[in-house]
């Protein structure tokens, strides 16, 4: 049953695909359709058995495979066109294109708009249903100039000079970056590029780029520079990262929804024990301060001490400035 409902749609796409490409190579077609060559051969044998009622030789679909593995299909007029896009098929493409169309200053803007118009036409009602799903990308209109500059540098293959704010360290840093691509992940846009100070591939969140200049220097991305595997998650813990354990109460239960955590263990009473790994504990200290009594650092102990010291120093500052109530 599930075999048939998987195989039939493939056959209904396979026949028109082969009709428009006489002599297509078996191995290429198998790759395109994501099946083994054996499965493709079985598909073709099945197609060869089908046709118009009567099922005389002239009624059946003709499939010809040469010794060198080249396929030609004919006599399949009824199913010469692929089946129209279902709602579920049209939706991801349309929502994905609409998301690209929202990125200001993108060079592919024209292609996105025209592809979207054609697809919406082809998908008809399926396109209407797609409006029930939308993806917001930050920054929508906050840094169009940044994206435009990054886009220009990518197109002209030129180096960028960035002023980049690093919140974990509360620092504005200056660096030269050879741009590789723009990546949009979890609703935020990033410049991915070869950072010449770090001599490594780095991601720069566009809304944290406070100033950008396209330099008159050609970009020089070393051949070993590989863009991130976006599906593995943006924050991949390194081998030298420090393990941190946090305990939060119900009021701090939001933490794992906003910070990359390794594991979350529910505690009686609605709290949780959170484990994470990080190369830089400064943001954990900020988080611990923010949580106040809604959470605490369990380990490492010196991180807990550092948080108390931060709190004491902050209290001293309030006192010094005469702003301490009571």
């Amino acid at each position, binding site marked *: 049953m599930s*075999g048939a409902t998987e195989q039939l749609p493939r056959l209904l796409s*396979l026949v028109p695909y082969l009709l428009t490409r006489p002599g297509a190579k078996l191995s290429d077609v198998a790759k395109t359709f994501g099946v083994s060559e054996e499965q493709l051969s079985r598909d073709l044998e099945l197609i060869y058995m089908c046709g118009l009622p009567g099922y005389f030789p002239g009624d059946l679909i003709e499939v010809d495979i040469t010794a060198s593995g080249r396929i030609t299909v004919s006599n399949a007029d009824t*199913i010469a066109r692929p089946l129209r896009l279902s709602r579920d098929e049209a939706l991801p493409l349309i929502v994905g294109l609409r*998301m690209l169309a929202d990125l200001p200053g993108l060079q592919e803007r024209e292609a996105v708009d025209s592809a979207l118009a054609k697809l919406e036409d082809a998908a008809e009602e399926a396109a209407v249903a797609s409006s029930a799903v939308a993806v917001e990308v930050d920054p929508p209109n906050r840094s169009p100039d940044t994206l435009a500059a990054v886009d220009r540098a990518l197109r002209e293959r030129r180096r960028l000079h960035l002023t980049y704010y690093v919140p974990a360290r509360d620092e504005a840093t200056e660096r030269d970056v050879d741009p590789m691509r723009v990546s949009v992940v979890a609703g935020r846009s990033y410049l991915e590029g070869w950072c010449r100070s770090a001599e490594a591939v780095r991601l720069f969140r566009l809304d944290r780029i406070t100033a950008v200049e396209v330099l008159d220097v050609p970009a020089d991305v070393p051949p070993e520079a590989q863009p991130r595997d976006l599906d593995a998650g943006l924050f991949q813990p390194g081998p030298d990262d420090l393990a941190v354990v946090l305990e*939060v109460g119900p009021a701090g239960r939001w933490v794992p929804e906003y910070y990359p955590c390794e594991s979350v263990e529910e505690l009686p009473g609605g709290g949780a024990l959170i484990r994470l790994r990080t190369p830089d504990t400064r943001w954990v200290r900020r988080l611990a301060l923010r949580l106040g009594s809604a959470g605490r650092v369990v380990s490492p102990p010196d991180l807990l001490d550092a948080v108390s010291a931060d709190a004491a120093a*902050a209290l001293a500052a*309030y006192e010094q400035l005469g702003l301490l109530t009571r």
Partner: protein
Amino acid sequence: MSARKTERLLNLVICLLATRRYLSAEQIRRMVAGYEDLGDDAFKRKFERDKEDLRDLGIPLETGSDSSFDDEPGYRIRRDDYSLPDVTFEPAELAVLGVAARTWQHASLGGAASEALLKLRAAGVDIDDAVPVAIETRVATSEPAFDALRQAATDRRAVNFDYRTPGATRHVEPWGLVSWHGRWYLVGHDLDRGETRVFRVSRVVGQVEAVGRRGSVQVPEGVDVRKIVLQMVEDPVRISAKVLVREGSAYGMRRRASSITPHGDGWDLLELPIAHAERLADEAIGFGPDVVIVEPAEARAAVVARLRALAGAPAEAAAGGGT
């Protein structure tokens, strides 16, 4: 077994596409290979299931009759309804279509997106001609309730689900799903409260039950689900705060300040437009000794209380204390 079924279904599709007239079940039984050697009941059951399978695959199986004298319904598939309309994409358009499809690569819609690309390629469009694009996008749909809610929202059916805690059942007419900062939100009409509500999809517990007919939910004219979510997540600025920050620190706050004036002793005074006192307290306390709130006083008091708890006795600043 399964290959035989595929064969029968393919023959059925071809037959129903080839006919202009409606064919009765009996005619189909005689014409289409795979129904022979079946008793009446066995045929009926098999044919019913086959029709359902075709419809599930999105094949527009039409029911009707050619004359008013036929009391038995007939079946056919209109080619215009079946076929993907003629469409040709330019190489640059193909490139962005590829980006759009890969967006969902590891999300629940990833399979459907690649099926869609296959259909477009089957129409003669070759993705290999695509020009390289220097942009990659990803959207995750890891929330367990996402698919059921998306289905209901696109079907325009109402839903029942438990929110935050089992047993706390909500009855909602879903209007749409919006992803913001990588998290999915459901916007809809809460039937119990009689109001527009926004739900975090990750907080939906257990199964989502769709109720009512397809198309029974009407989205009121002028509703913009994206705007509703943005209004909820991005509070409008209400108050102006005064904050002292050490020279050379708190860049994030300085960027949003409406004015910055030197205050002496290594401090700068920032005027900061903010939405909520609590949110300012959350942000300011993170900077430790580098940021001091002058006003609003309630934000300052909130920070000082938290700092006292943390500085005083770290071991006793127990989780869940809720002071």
